[in-house]
């Protein structure tokens, strides 16, 4: 028990991200409303972003914006700065997420225009399957 | 054996394949179209004939088309066995073409262009099978033949022919993909090659006897064109096709290709020695004996002339496999020879059936009473052909059957000997009544009185083949030589 608790405390961010991921994932595959699926998708993606950002954290590290002249003269202490690489990756991931959301919402409107509903089961009924 | 690299085998295969293109293009000019057909036929025969002396002298002509798998090229090779078959096929094709022209034009059949084009592709594939240097090439041409004959079988475009076409493809493609292909792969995995080698390639491999037995079954059943029961049902069904197609299917190409493939596998993949050691030859002979007897019995009950001929074919095909399965020199020679002898006999019979249909539009034997007197030439040819099939002298069929009998006696297999004799009697029982009814029974229908002989285009081929089957009795030398060469004697 102690061990598990210690593990949770040491890695609570990972636990949190898994929980969020599960919420999003469940919404994506379990919910019947198409908007809900998209919201779930966004939650899923933010969960992944949270995970990546967590990997970049260093205890006691500052933000990855330095003072140019200071660095050029004195160098920099690596331990003082958090890892910038995951941030870069996640900027890209956020853009991708919002792009997909945009496309999906456009398609959603077309679906509504075509079938008059956003409930998956009602649409399937109308399609006749 | 001397291997000579030569482009002629390829030419022999491709000539009719390329002829399909001008045939398709000259749709609106039937005479030109048929001209192409005949030209390709003559060209093919002359190429094959030109290669004959070399093969008789023990040479082998080789041409590699493409290197497709490691150790297994797509390769053509003319050896004695292939030459044997190619000679029969290319010779008879000319007469089939001539006959087709007469038949199709008299009946004013539709889609003649497609018919002749498919025909050209089919004969290419047949020669390809004959000249294949390895199992893969053989498989390739085998499939090509199946697919190119599909339009021929379904030529009539009605529900009946569609059903038969479906049946045909189901049997032929199903068995070749489902049985031959895996068998081929197992052979390749074990031996690392698929080349036809005298004496076989499986002898030295590590395959267990059980696997070998499985392979034998896969091959014999898989080459369903040979019509060994229970994979024979497509053959009677395919009789809905026009008669020249049936004669082509049964006399020249399709079924013979099946038998030829099985013989190839027995001689050059397994090797007689291996089969003899395992005693599988005997099993095989017993197995096909069942086909021989039951197919003959079924033939007796058929009233439709072409169906009767079809069941007769099923029985006769198994003779050839029977001969190979005896694994004695005479038996194997007899099996091989029977390909040629049966081809000449059976094609005559089908030509006659077609001629009768062209002249009188009759399909059923019971309707044909008295017809012989109106069509004496056709009926005479029919008689000659059936005598050859039954195996009486002075007809070619006698030689091959004699060899088979000798082979069975050499091997001391009394059962087989009995089978041969009984089936010959059955042959007589289902052929001779037809002739008898034709000549000696009074016509039952008034329409018979108006019947006249079929046109010359039909008559000439059937006379030639009928006489041919007689000539084979007197001059079987070429085929005998080739058969001996093929068996490495």
């Amino acid at each position, binding site marked *: 028990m102690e061990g598990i608790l210690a593990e949770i405390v040491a890695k609570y961010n990972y636990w949190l991200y*898994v929980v969020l991921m599960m919420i999003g*994932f469940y919404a994506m595959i379990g919910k019947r409303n198409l908007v809900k699926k998209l919201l779930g998708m966004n939650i899923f993606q933010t969960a992944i972003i949270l995970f990546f950002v967590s990997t970049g954290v*260093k205890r*006691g590290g500052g933000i990855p*914006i330095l003072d140019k002249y200071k660095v050029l003269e004195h160098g920099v202490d690596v331990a003082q700065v958090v*890892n910038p690489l995951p941030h*870069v990756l996640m900027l*890209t991931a956020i853009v991708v997420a919002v792009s997909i959301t945009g*496309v999906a919402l456009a*398609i959603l409107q077309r679906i509504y225009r075509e079938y008059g509903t956003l409930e998956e089961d009602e649409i399937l009924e109308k399609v006749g399957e | 054996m001397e291997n000579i690299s030569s482009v002629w085998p390829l030419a022999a295969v491709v000539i009719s394949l390329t002829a399909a293109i001008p045939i398709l293009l000259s749709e609106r000019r039937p005479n030109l179209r048929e001209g192409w057909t005949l030209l390709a036929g003559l060209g093919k025969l002359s190429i094959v004939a030109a290669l004959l002396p070399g093969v008789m002298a023990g040479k082998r002509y080789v041409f590699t088309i493409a290197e497709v798998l490691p150790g297994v090229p797509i390769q053509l090779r003319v050896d004695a066995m292939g030459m044997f078959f190619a000679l029969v096929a290319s010779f008879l094709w000319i007469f089939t073409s001539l006959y087709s022209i007469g038949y199709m034009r008299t009946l004013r059949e539709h889609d003649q262009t497609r018919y002749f084009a498919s025909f050209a592709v089919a004969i290419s594939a047949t020669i390809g099978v004959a000249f294949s240097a390895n199992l893969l090439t053989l498989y390739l041409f085998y499939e090509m033949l199946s697919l190119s004959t599909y339009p021929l079988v379904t030529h009539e475009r009605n529900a009946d022919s569609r059903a038969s076409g479906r049946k045909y493809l189901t049997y032929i493609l199903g068995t070749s993909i489902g049985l031959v292909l895996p068998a081929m792969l197992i052979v390749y995995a074990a031996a690392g090659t698929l080349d036809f080698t005298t004496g076989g390639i499986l002898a030295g491999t590590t395959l267990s006897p059980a696997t070998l037995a499985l392979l034998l079954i896969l091959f014999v059943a898989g080459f369903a064109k040979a019509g060994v029961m229970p994979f024979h049902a497509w053959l009677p069904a395919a009789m809905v096709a026009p008669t020249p197609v049936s004669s082509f299917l049964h006399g020249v190409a399709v079924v013979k290709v099946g038998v030829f493939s099985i013989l190839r596998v027995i001689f050059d993949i397994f090797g007689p020695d291996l089969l003899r050691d395992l005693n599988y030859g005997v099993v095989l002979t017993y197995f096909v004996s069942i086909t021989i007897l039951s197919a003959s019995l079924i033939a007796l009950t058929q009233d439709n002339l072409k169906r009767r001929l079809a069941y007769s074919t099923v029985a006769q095909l198994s003779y050839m496999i029977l001969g190979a399965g005896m694994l004695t020199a005479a038996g194997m020679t007899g099996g091989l020879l029977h390909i040629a002898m049966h081809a000449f006999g059976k094609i005559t019979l089908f030509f006659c059936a077609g001629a009768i249909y062209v002249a009188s539009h009759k399909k059923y034997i019971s309707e044909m009473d008295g017809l012989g007197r109106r069509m004496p030439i056709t009926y005479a040819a029919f008689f000659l052909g059936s005598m050859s099939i039954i195996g009486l002298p002075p007809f070619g069929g006698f030689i091959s059957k004699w060899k088979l009998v000798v082979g069975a006696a050499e091997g001391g297999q009394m059962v087989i000997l009995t089978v041969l004799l009984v089936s010959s009697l059955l042959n007589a029982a289902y052929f001779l009544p037809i002739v008898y009814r034709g000549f000696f029974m009074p016509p039952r229908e008034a329409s018979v009185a108006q019947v006249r002989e079929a046109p010359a285009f039909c008559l000439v081929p059937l006379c030639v083949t009928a006489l041919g089957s007689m000539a084979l009795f007197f001059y079987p030398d070429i085929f005998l030589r080739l058969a001996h060469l093929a068996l490495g004697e």
Partner: protein
Amino acid sequence: MKNLALLATLVTGAILLYGTKDFAPWGDPGSPAATHLSPYYIENAVEQTHVPNLVTAVLGDYRGYDTMFETVVIYCAGMAVVSVLRRPKR
């Protein structure tokens, strides 16, 4: 259906959690992620690009190829929405 979804979710979550057991504790400055690539960026980026915002430096230059495609992604999104949704003007 919902039960199946729940099951799939739980299984996925469980596998992901199982995977985290080998991770270094959160925020550990000695973890591989913090010691393999990132020190290079932190130490050299300013010198090599004269950009003090490390994220911008890495985004724009070291991983500029990613960012190029990121731009293309959003561009595609715009085009896709226009092509899917916009109706021709009357």
